[in-house]
């Protein structure tokens, strides 16, 4: 079973793959928008926090999508 962090990364990866046919940059932007619209604040906050954590295993595109998120209120 996945940990909760792994699950966030997995979900983001899944979203990216479904947008992938649009091209890399578009897919990253579409994923960031999707997360903004559908992820709860604590999930977004966790995603942003993971960017800073050395141990976090983030595939490159997932990292880019997380980096495009704004900190939720």
């Amino acid at each position: 079973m996945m940990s909760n962090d792994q699950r966030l990364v997995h979900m983001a990866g899944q979203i990216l793959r479904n947008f992938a046919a649009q091209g890399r940059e578009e897919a990253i932007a579409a994923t960031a928008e999707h997360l903004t619209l559908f992820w709860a604040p604590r999930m977004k906050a966790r995603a942003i926090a993971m960017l800073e954590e050395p141990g976090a295993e983030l595939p490159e595109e997932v990292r880019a999508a997380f980096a495009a998120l704004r900190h939720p209120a």
Partner: protein
Amino acid sequence: MTFTREKDFGTPEAMGAAVSLTIDGQEVSVPAGTSIMRAAAMVDTAIPKLCATDSLESFGSCRLCLVEVEGRSGYPASCTTPVAPGMAVRTQSDRLRKLRRGVMELYISDHPLDCLTCGANGDCELQDMAGAVGLRDVRFGYEGENHLEGCKDESNPYFTFDPTKCIVCSRCVRACDETQGTLALTVDGRGFASGISASQDESFLSSECVSCGACVQACPTSALIEKTVIEIGTPDRAVVTTCAYCGVGCTFRAEMRGEELVRMVPWKEGKANHGHSCVKGRFAWGYAQHRDRILNPMMRGSVDEPWREVSWEAAIARVASEFRRLQKEHGARAIGGITSSRCTNEETFLVQKLVRQGFGNNNVDTCARVCHSPTGYGLKTTFGTSAGTQDFDSVRHADVILVIGANPTDGHPVFASRMKKRLREGAKLIVVDPRRIDMVRSPHIEAAFHLPLRPGTNVAVLTAMAHVIVTEGLVNETYVRERCDTDAYAEWAEFVSEPARSPEAVEDLTGVPAADLRAAARLYATGGNAAIYYGLGVTEHSQGSSTVMAIANLAMATGNVGKDGVGVNPLRGQNNVQGACDMGSFPHELSGYRHVSDSAARSLFERDWGVSLDPEPGLRIPNMLDAATDGAFKGIFIQGEDILQSDPNTTHVAAGLAAMECVVVQDLFLNETANYAHVFLPGSTFLEKDGTFTNAERRIQRVRKVMEPKNGYADWEVVQLVAHAMGLDWNYTHPSQIMDEIARLTPTFAGVNYAVLDQRGSLQWPVNAAAPEGTPTMHIDHFVRGKGNFVVTDYVPTDERTGPRFPLLLTTGRILSQYNVGAQTRRTANVEWHEEDRLEIHPHDAENRGIRDGNWVSLRSRAGETTLRAKITDRVAPGVVYTTFHHPDTQANVITTDFSDWATNCPEYKVTAVQVMPSNGPSDWQRSYRAQAEASRRIEPAEPAE
């Protein structure tokens, strides 16, 4: 309402141009094609009849309905003779009276005269007709040969067949053929020796009969009669209400004797069901009185303690104080709620209002998360609105019907009957399903194509269909140009045209023969009006949302949206799952599908409710459970939903619930989720409250209270009590006021109120100034979003893969007689049809493993293991196994994983890699779960009052 039977016009309605005639001198104008009998009934002239009833085509066998027509010789049967312009009909004359009496005499001479003690006494058409024709004596005597010795068939749990009361009018046979489409009954023998029999002279229970009750309703005597009528007596009042089981939304007359429900009779005026129903709605309501129902609130300190019955005040006070404490200690977003698709729109609206206004966050979700959330996402993205495009009646105009990932005869039986009727009339059927569902081949129906795809490859199959349509020039170019976003179309067309998307290229992956796929695509694109009906076999995948969009793409490309007979039609599961979604049960949406970040929409609510609302989306159910195991989510209010049994990966759900400090469950029964609850609030049944449900065709229909809530409060009242305890100023005295608030705050519901609903029977949203009478067909001149949006749907294989350890694919579903987790249906006689969940396995896979039919087998996935018995059948393809999830002992969801739809987190129920092996008993999980469930259901006797 006092008791009157619904008027029977004798023959069905006709649609032709107006024709004028006279009946007993009275001028009448009716549509061409109307029978004389119906025309007479329209001016309240009742012509005696026995074999005719307006739900069935006329048959003309009893000869009781004879009339005289000026200028014609003889005495034509009024039920089979259509009206003609200028016709002059006489319904009464000495000669007619004599003829009719002669007919009645023959019937009565072979009929037991125990009317006074007969179950149908006072509600029998034979009795009525004897009176109507003035029968005073019977010349033939009863000593001649007769049928009075026949033996009763009481095998069906809900109705009896007494052949001695049968007049062989064949209404039952025709009801089974025409209305239900099961063709289970026949008239055996000829002439005097004829009689009714089920299938090959079997009992009703062991025959093909699916217990829909259409024959019982059609029977003019007590030959076929509900057992409850025999037990309780004939009803004395009737209230029209809506079925609380599935998304077809059949309406019924609840026929009552005092406070007791005698029977449910499908309402002929009901626009979703037109007087038909299935076994669940008509018969399976006994759970409402079941002794397992919990009628008093209960609490406990921790989940290993037994339950203690407490007062409503104590229970509600605990809920409020715990929720407030948790928010104080862990933040405003540490609690949330789950609304129920089984409850009314009004109740659902209140639960999400409690969360948004009272809890101050958006942590609200609903069981649609696990079924049709991808429909919401997919149809909103492509068409602009989160709902099906048609009404059910639309199927009458369909020429090609594509059923994908749905099993209508089991899941949506009444609509399946309509669909089968259309197919018997000649419409063509395409079935896309891993399993050979009943629709593929049933009496008088044969699918033109069955594409038995490998579970998880929907997107590849639909994109290959699109490939055929685009590359073979079958696109409706005019439609696309006028109605759709042409840039999006061009991009999509280019994508699907790539050789890699062709049927040949994906054949190995999908398992669907390319030639069949091509032929099916051509039929869909060129066969006339083409309608797609789909179910959870589409949505419950890691690409559920993509599949919905792929379906929408196909419909747009072929011009099959925006008129009768076509469309994209999700067959929604629960009675009010459409409504629950409409009411703002999702964490990112306010009622009417407006995103919480939309400040204009939010301010509407803020003004009305006097609070400011959280602009950030809340947690979805699986996210709530994750947050709980992280220690960030502490309390939940769950109304009418059993997430422990119905949601995937039971172990994970259990861990999430166990990590919370205050779990509040409101339900009829101590369901599985309640094993983890601290407070239990008893719920009320649909018979005990007022409100509305919205069915799969967006049809809003009234639910009416027929008896007082046995638990003391309707569910909306309980939510209001919680709101009061949390300091909210709610003042609803009737659900109609809640609907008024919904209408005030939701543009698509602007014109809905109880007065209009009572007057019109039902309304399909949007109901507003532009469409005051509702909207049966959507997107007629333009899509709700403006231009139809083609979305590229790339096939992405699921992460759930078969391999040496888990070589088979498990897919799940349900059957006709049971409903979802079975909390209700398992507490009715419906268990006679389905005592346990079984695992369907192909003979080949069974043989490889040494499994025989009926053997216990273990079913194991990466998530867990359970055991159940095997059923060997070639309905499933080699490599695929199938089971239902109706029984808690099986716990099929111990097996399902927590993979989910990429866009909505709708769980991937339909694909789990598993291994199946012979076994000799319950799995460890089953054993320990059963022990824990029993322990957690203990109820301490209430303390005596001081």
